[in-house]
């Protein structure tokens, strides 16, 4: 019923409405959270956030800088264009799986099956395309849909029957691993066409210098335009908006990062296709989570299931769909991982893949308790993990030590998370 009324007055925001703007200040307690304009405001806001423990991505970014500085001082080959480019391509597989994990973590649940499901996707593609001669695109789509179906089954058992997600997906972990071994058959390894669609996912580079710089320009301009237009609308509607100086500062920071990354890629093979796809996925999922009512429902469920139910949200459907999304991204990640080695083998989806994907989401700042996080967290987290892997590999340090160090980093992250949460609680912003 309220929606009907929204359409009748929807044009009101276009009109400059100083009365509403002046009046709306009254509703907000003036003693609190008044933000000074411009850079001085930035500084006080930052100090307030620091005190309140509202650090956002700062600890991860700082951690990443520390890791890079350490490895660079150990081995001067670490911060070369080639190594950085390889890291960014290698991280996409785990990163895609971590994106799905972020969705599940936002509900306050966990999916332990994503590793096995990613292996199933690679094997399904290999069997359909190489063994059975199905066309690449059909096999590709079917492989991804296998992941969607697996996730939907987990979601169904969890949401409709009420089995804890942890237990359902633990069963899934074993089942899908067995399923993969079964369809791979006795050989155990199926090599993919090294010039084929899946192999190209990680081996294709846009060699034209203009591609990387063009993408950096588009991303920066897109960010500026959406912020600028959004702020103009807010001003017109008389709600608080970001000053132009803020928007410009943010755009400049983004431009520096974007063009630096583009320059690094252009020094090596060019802009990797895998990275373009990953960024597109991150933009899309971030949009879905923060700008659509579906995304709002996911956050609501992570906050309070009962409140969501009373607000008329179909809790079961959201849960099933989120697990289906996690399965889908696990499958996409599995195809990127198969692409990297150009084969589907029995070891796919095993080892530390699952832990790395979950760790990436958590290290990036997604809360383990639901309701807090962004898919961009997956990018930062996976960058940390893959940087450590590559750095240690450059040093010739074997995987046992890698595991221990990654475990230590994960522990440090959750400790920071717990301390942050405590500070936030005392500051009343948990």
């Amino acid at each position: 019923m309220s929606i009907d009324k929204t359409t009748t007055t929807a044009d009101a925001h276009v009109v400059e409405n100083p009365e509403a703007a002046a009046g709306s200040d009254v509703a907000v307690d003036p003693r609190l959270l008044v933000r000074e304009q411009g850079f001085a405001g930035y500084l006080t806001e930052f100090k307030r956030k620091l005190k309140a423990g509202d650090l956002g991505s700062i600890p991860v970014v700082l951690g990443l800088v520390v890791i890079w500085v350490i490895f660079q001082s150990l081995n001067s080959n670490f911060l070369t264009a080639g190594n950085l480019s390889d890291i960014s391509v290698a991280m996409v597989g785990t990163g895609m799986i971590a994106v799905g994990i972020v969705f599940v973590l936002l509900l306050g649940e966990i999916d332990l099956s994503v590793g096995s499901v990613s292996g199933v996707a690679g094997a399904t593609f290999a069997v359909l395309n190489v063994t059975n001669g199905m066309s690449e695109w059909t096999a590709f789509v079917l492989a991804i849909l296998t992941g969607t179906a697996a996730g939907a089954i987990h979601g169904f058992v969890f949401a409709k029957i009420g089995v804890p997600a942890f237990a359902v997906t633990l069963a899934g972990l074993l089942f899908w691993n067995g399923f993969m071994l079964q369809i791979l058959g006795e050989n155990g390894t199926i090599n993919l066409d090294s010039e084929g669609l899946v192999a190209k996912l990680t081996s294709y580079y846009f060699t034209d210098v203009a591609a990387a710089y063009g993408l950096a320009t588009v991303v920066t301009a897109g960010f500026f335009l959406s912020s600028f237009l959004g702020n103009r609308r807010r001003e017109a509607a008389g709600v608080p908006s970001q000053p132009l100086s803020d928007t410009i500062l943010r755009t400049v920071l983004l431009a520096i990062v974007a063009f630096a990354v583009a320059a690094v890629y252009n020094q090596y093979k060019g802009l990797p296709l895998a990275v373009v796809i990953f960024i597109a996925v991150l933009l899309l999922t971030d949009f879905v989570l923060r700008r659509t009512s579906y995304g709002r429902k996911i956050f609501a469920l992570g906050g309070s299931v009962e409140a969501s139910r009373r607000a008329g949200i179909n809790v079961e459907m959201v849960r099933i769909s989120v697990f289906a999304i996690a399965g889908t991204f696990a499958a996409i990640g599995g195809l990127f991982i198969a692409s990297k080695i150009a084969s589907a083998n029995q070891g796919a989806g095993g080892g530390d893949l699952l832990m790395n994907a979950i760790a990436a989401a958590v290290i990036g700042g997604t809360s383990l308790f639901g309701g807090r996080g962004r898919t961009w967290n997956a990018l930062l987290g996976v960058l940390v993990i893959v940087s450590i892997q590559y750095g240690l590999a450059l040093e010739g340090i074997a995987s046992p030590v890698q595991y221990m160090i990654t475990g230590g980093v994960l522990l440090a992250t959750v400790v920071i998370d717990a301390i942050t949460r405590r500070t936030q609680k005392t500051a009343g912003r948990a």
Partner: protein
Amino acid sequence: MIDVSATPVLALRGVSKRFGAVQALTDVELEVHAGEVVALVGDNGAGKSTLVKTIAGVHPIDEGVIVWDGKSVQINKPHDAQNLGIATVYQDLALCDNIDVVGNLYLGREIRKRGVLDEVEMERRSRELLQTLSIRIPSVRIPIASLSGGQRQTVAIARSMLGEPKLVILDEPTAALGVEQTAQVLDLVERLRERGHAVILISHNMADVKAVADKVAVLRLGRNNGVFEVKSTSQEEIISAITGATDNAVTRRAARTTGEIQK
């Protein structure tokens, strides 16, 4: 009382409700007019919550008639009640701690523009709504977790106002609130009345009832035990109606203490 209309917004006639062997409500009568606050009081287990749930559509009634705006209606589902214009704010708040005030106000009925959340419009209207109800909160863009208990309660009530309901049911809105916060919520209840909403207020707190209610409907063991005009009724009369007798622990104690003072 400001301009109470002749036809009650909601009238219950001889409503009964059974749960198995338990007769929760027996022949209950209740009337609420627009611009009127009716306090529903009674001891624990008197049937207050059951009565409210029958109106809100959580439990359909077994016998009796619900009259809405002079017409007999069926309320079988929460959705029926919402469609009629009945909003219920339950004791345990139905808010998500991690979502900001705007997001909570519009949860489940987001304003969309070409399929995308229209945050600007939702924020503008949230500010307007909070302002018309004179609700003071630090910012409409901070998570609910940052608000005090009283502020959360006012946000929960404001949320129920979005559908422009004719009748608002508040289930113990001041339980577990401090003095200042209780006053905020009571102020809000008065503003609801000024804006012409009918309000049913469930409360255990006689001070709150005396402060904002126009009428007090007393339930005892699932039956009506009197409807009183607040202005012309003493607290003792209401309490004796709640407990069911003039001779009970409460009055005995009162008599004893006044007796001691006289000595």
